[in-house]
């Protein structure tokens, strides 16, 4: 059973002073690279979230107000539960995720596609691609090999309906663990990346 957590609408979040808070973006590195809040947020994909490590690397405390953010809100719930389970006391899910934040007027930044030169599609497209391919494969196998394979297509179809109704997608969580979706991320809080930082600084 999922732990009950607080939630806040993106509109209400706009009114908050976030100077003392930590926003944790729990999407995949690829999604983060594509589009993210302009407001600083720690990247910590939910599939490998280590709350203690995120806090340590972000200078946060167990009592620091933490807002979890994903694409639509579902993964943020899972991440919030992990934080609460680890002893953090002020955890809030941002309802509707990044999409709602954009609607509420939060500035976002991003490249459309990662700057690393990768051409991997978004997680959403990967899910559609894999689900469609599996469905077609099972239907073909059902037609030409054995009818039992049609159950596989039925399973994929039901899974998609379930995902649409609950906004929880096991296939997406599975794909998020794939190596091509982890580019630039190691450890619980994704500390090591690559690429270039802006000039005119002390770097």
């Amino acid at each position: 059973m999922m732990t009950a957590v607080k939630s806040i609408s993106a509109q209400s979040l706009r009114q908050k002073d976030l100077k003392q808070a930590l926003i944790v973006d729990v999407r995949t590195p690829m999604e983060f690279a594509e589009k993210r809040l302009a407001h600083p947020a720690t990247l910590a994909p939910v599939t490998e979230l280590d709350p203690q490590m995120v806090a340590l690397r972000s200078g946060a405390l167990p009592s620091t107000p933490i807002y979890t953010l994903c694409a639509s809100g579902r993964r943020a719930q899972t991440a919030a539960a992990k934080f609460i389970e680890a002893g953090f006391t002020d955890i809030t899910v941002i309802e509707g995720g990044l999409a709602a934040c954009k609607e509420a007027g939060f500035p976002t930044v991003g490249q459309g596609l990662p700057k690393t030169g990768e051409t991997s599609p978004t997680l959403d497209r990967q899910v559609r691609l894999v689900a469609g391919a599996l469905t077609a494969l099972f239907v073909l196998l059902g037609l030409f090999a054995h009818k039992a394979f049609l159950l596989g297509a039925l399973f994929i179809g039901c899974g998609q309906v379930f995902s649409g109704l609950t906004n929880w997608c096991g296939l997406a969580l599975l794909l998020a663990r794939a190596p091509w979706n982890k580019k630039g991320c190691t450890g619980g809080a994704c500390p090591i990346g690559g690429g270039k930082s802006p000039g005119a600084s002390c770097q």
Partner: protein
Amino acid sequence: MSAPNVRGFFDPVTATWTYVVWSATDAQRRCAIIDSVLDFDMYACRTSTASADAVIDFVRQQNFVVEWILETHIHADHITAASYIKEKMGGKIAISKHMLDIIATWTPIFQTQEDTPADGSAFDYLFDNDEEFTIADMPAKIIHTPGHTPADTTYIVGNAVFVGDTIFLPDVGSGRCDFPGGSADDSYDSSRKLFALPNDTRIYVGHDYPPEGMRGPQCMATVAEQKTGNVRLNQQVGKADFVTRRRADDSGKAVPPLILPSLQANMRTGKFGKAVNGMQYVKLPLNRM
């Protein structure tokens, strides 16, 4: 070895980390504030205090007593809020004695000798090299880690060290060495002083410049992580290679936008010059930078 509690505050405008450091066991609830930020609108030449106020709010919420307001160096990219915090919360403003070299270098350039004490008396205390002191009930020590500037220093508090711009997170590297008195050779040697610390020592950096789209701002990596992963200074990198690359990368680099107001104010702990007719001024030396 003590393990201090550390709360970090990130200023996205200047990419600066400010830290509040305290001990869980200190009955007097004393804390240190390291490398604070006074917000500065360069175009309007106007200061504000939102960043420092967030730190002050936290300190008040925790019922802390500010014991030390520490600077790792004279910052060239942001103005310190040390004086503002002292005014609001008390505490002693301290820095390494090597900042006297910075004052000697820069006050003739700015012609600010009149209101910038050459003896560093704008600060409450100047640390000697390797001086030991305490933060609350924790032993602390200062070590000289020059390179980015000749006055960069590191504060060691139990298993945490606060390095300013001596080194950055592994994927970012280290501070530039092209300011007056900066030295890539010294920067390399300073990194090796840090690498001599136990592998699980937490290195808290003065800035973070997260690689675009790869992660958000973070403040800490361990000595072991720096040794293996720092893109400029990992253990596999030799001194000659580092120096060659650092000098090449620093060549022709743009100066930090706030360098001129920052240096002037920071040599006076974040205060601006003597008022003339009730107005303070920042001097902008022409054709100098």
